[in-house]
């Protein structure tokens, strides 16, 4: 005979088993991991192809697949040098195109210098010409033809690559700092938005499950057995811990997957720099997940308890994901004013703050560490108030099957406990 386990632990462990068996939870958790791993494998392939197509040898090959007819007399192709195939007449070029000797034919008119107009002939696949890169490759050859021999080779090289920007950030107080490399910048933008979206989805799935779970326990008379076995606080604490654990496990899996896969993806992007996410951002993400699950779970338990039926609970629970995703509705607006009134409201209002903070950081808003901490403390405090209210009304609400839980009931329950 083993010793008696604390009620909260019993409820926690049994609820956790229920969550872990939820197909939605497993699918959702694994799907994100799979997507990131697939991106890690697929993105470099595209990047490699792009890098190859931009190389010198590739340009040569491309030029040999291009034909042109010069009616302006400006362009000539020195013998023995790589370049497009010259044809004397359009008809001749079109025949070569039809035979597959070239992929595209460009006809330069007599008034080219005045008009800049060039006729482009190519086969089409659907709506698009089937000569990818032909246009830009021929443009580069045109530029070279226009100015070659008239400028220094170094100038010519600079014409093709006129700028390699290095960004510096000027603060309001006049101090100048280096701007983070692309990967770091993308990490700063993409990662918070990614996790805000994942948090919103996680809350929607988890809280939706919890609302239904409580409502079904209420609708069946099982809850009467439960509340003669343990206190409402233990019931709520057990459920809260279970869903919180689920959320944090999910977050941990996603954080680890992101940390492992995104650097691999960015490594393949030339000039992207080293992918880094600051420790403070990871801490913020974890804080948002913890408080977000805390608040949403108490809200879900409350809604499940006061809903007169499981059907009504589904309707009420439908609002929770809406709350989690509200910050995303304003992303366009927040991008323009990341520190404006709306951004501040969404990142400080407890109900929207867990995703609001991440969205605001993602769009480039400034939130000091203490501001984030204060906002998340507000979320935690609101969750504590909801927990207190829910504990008080749980017993009264849970026994009212098929009846609406009125404001009068709420007030009575709050007073009497």
């Amino acid at each position: 005979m083993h010793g008696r386990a604390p009620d909260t632990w019993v409820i926690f462990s049994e609820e956790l088993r229920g969550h872990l068996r939820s197909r939605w939870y497993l699918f959702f958790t694994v799907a994100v991991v799979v997507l990131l791993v697939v991106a890690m494998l697929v993105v470099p392939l595209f990047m490699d192809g792009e890098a190859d197509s931009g190389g010198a040898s590739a340009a040569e090959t491309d030029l040999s697949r291009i034909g042109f007819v010069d009616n302006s007399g400006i362009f000539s192709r020195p013998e023995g040098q790589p370049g497009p195939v010259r044809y004397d007449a359009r008809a001749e070029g079109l025949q070569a195109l039809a035979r597959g000797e070239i992929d595209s034919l460009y006809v330069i008119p007599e008034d080219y210098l005045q008009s800049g107009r060039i006729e482009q002939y190519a086969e089409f696949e659907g709506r698009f010409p089937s000569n990818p890169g032909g246009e830009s490759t021929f443009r580069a050859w045109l530029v070279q033809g226009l100015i070659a021999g008239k400028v220094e080779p170094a100038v010519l090289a600079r014409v093709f690559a006129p700028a390699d920007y290095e960004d510096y950030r000027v603060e309001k107080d006049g101090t100048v700092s280096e701007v983070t490399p692309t990967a770091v910048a993308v990490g700063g933008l993409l990662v918070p938005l990614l996790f805000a979206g994942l948090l919103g989805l996680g809350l929607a799935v988890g809280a939706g499950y919890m609302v239904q779970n409580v409502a079904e326990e209420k609708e069946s008379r099982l809850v009467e057995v439960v509340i003669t076995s343990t206190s409402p606080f233990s019931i709520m604490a057990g459920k809260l811990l279970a869903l919180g654990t689920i959320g944090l496990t999910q977050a941990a899996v996603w954080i680890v997957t992101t940390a492992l896969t995104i650097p691999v993806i960015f490594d393949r992007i030339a000039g992207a720099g080293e992918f880094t996410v600051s420790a403070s951002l990871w801490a913020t993400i974890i804080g948002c997940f913890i408080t977000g699950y805390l608040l949403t779970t108490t809200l879900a338990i409350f809604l499940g308890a006061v809903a007169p039926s499981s059907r009504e609970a589904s309707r009420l629970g439908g609002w929770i994901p809406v709350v989690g995703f509200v910050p995303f509705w304003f992303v366009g607006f927040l991008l323009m004013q990341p520190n404006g009134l709306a951004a501040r409201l969404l990142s400080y209002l407890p109900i929207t703050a867990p995703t609001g903070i991440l969205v605001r950081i993602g769009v480039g808003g400034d939130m000091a560490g203490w501001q984030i901490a204060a906002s998340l403390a507000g979320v935690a405090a609101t969750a504590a108030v909801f927990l207190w209210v829910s504990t008080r009304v749980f017993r009264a609400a849970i026994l009212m099957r098929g009846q609406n839980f009125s404001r009068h009931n709420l007030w009575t329950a709050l007073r009497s406990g």
Partner: protein
Amino acid sequence: MNDQALHVEGLTKAFARRTVVDDLSFSVRAGEIFGFLGPNGSGKTTTIRMALGIIRPDSGSVSILGSRSELSVLRSVGYLPEEAGLPPKARVLDTIRYLGRLKGMSRADAESRANELLTRVGLYEHRLKKVDTLSQGMKQMIQFIVAVVHRPRFLILDEPFSGLDPLNVQLMKQILLEHQHAGATIMFSTHIMADVEEMCERIVLIAEGTLLLFGDLGEIRRQRGVKSVQVMADGIPDELRSDHPRVLPENIVEYQIGQERTPEQIFQAYAASGIRVDRFERVLPSLNDIFIEEVSRARKSS
């Protein structure tokens, strides 16, 4: 007071100004099987909920297993709610184990006992199924297992036999008797009076939230007096033919007893007629008769 498993005193509860339970007092002795009777809406379930501390009475007191309805005491109580239901998506074994653990059992004990009981009621092969795949009777048996899984000292069952076929009713009664023999007290409500007469030593009958009858079932029946007399004899005395007795199989004749006819008069009539009598039996009113009479009277008076 330890000889009482439950004692309610002056229990009163009103919902929205309607008094559902009104100054109700009764007690259940430790170790007995007790019948809690009343028509639909008479306040039985509300009384049970107050006894279990699920809802608070407006006035009056409850003592269960010698103390107030506190969780430490209620863990020794098994409860089968009326219109019992289980979460439809939960698995049978998980649900029993979960509630067994909440009643203080270890995980291993709860699971082992759940399997034992599921085997006993013939539902072992359904243990991994979801509740919503089971029939109504199966669900009721699962709910019964939930009530007894932790071997409670006191079992409170609200309409335990509803939805069960006769075989399962018999099986449930058998398990209840085993629990009683092991020292448990059992209180159950039902509308089937035959079950009460078969199982219960004492009863309480309430209607409109007020107490109508409380005490020893045999005593209550005896107090109501003889309802009829059944005589197994070779014939009917001429003196009694005007009573238009009911003729039953096996030469049994039943005479209704009233102010104009007493059992003694019937006996003397047979003795005087010289008809051979094999059996002479005074028939007490059935619990069903008493229930109908008492509840009808209560409704008329209210």
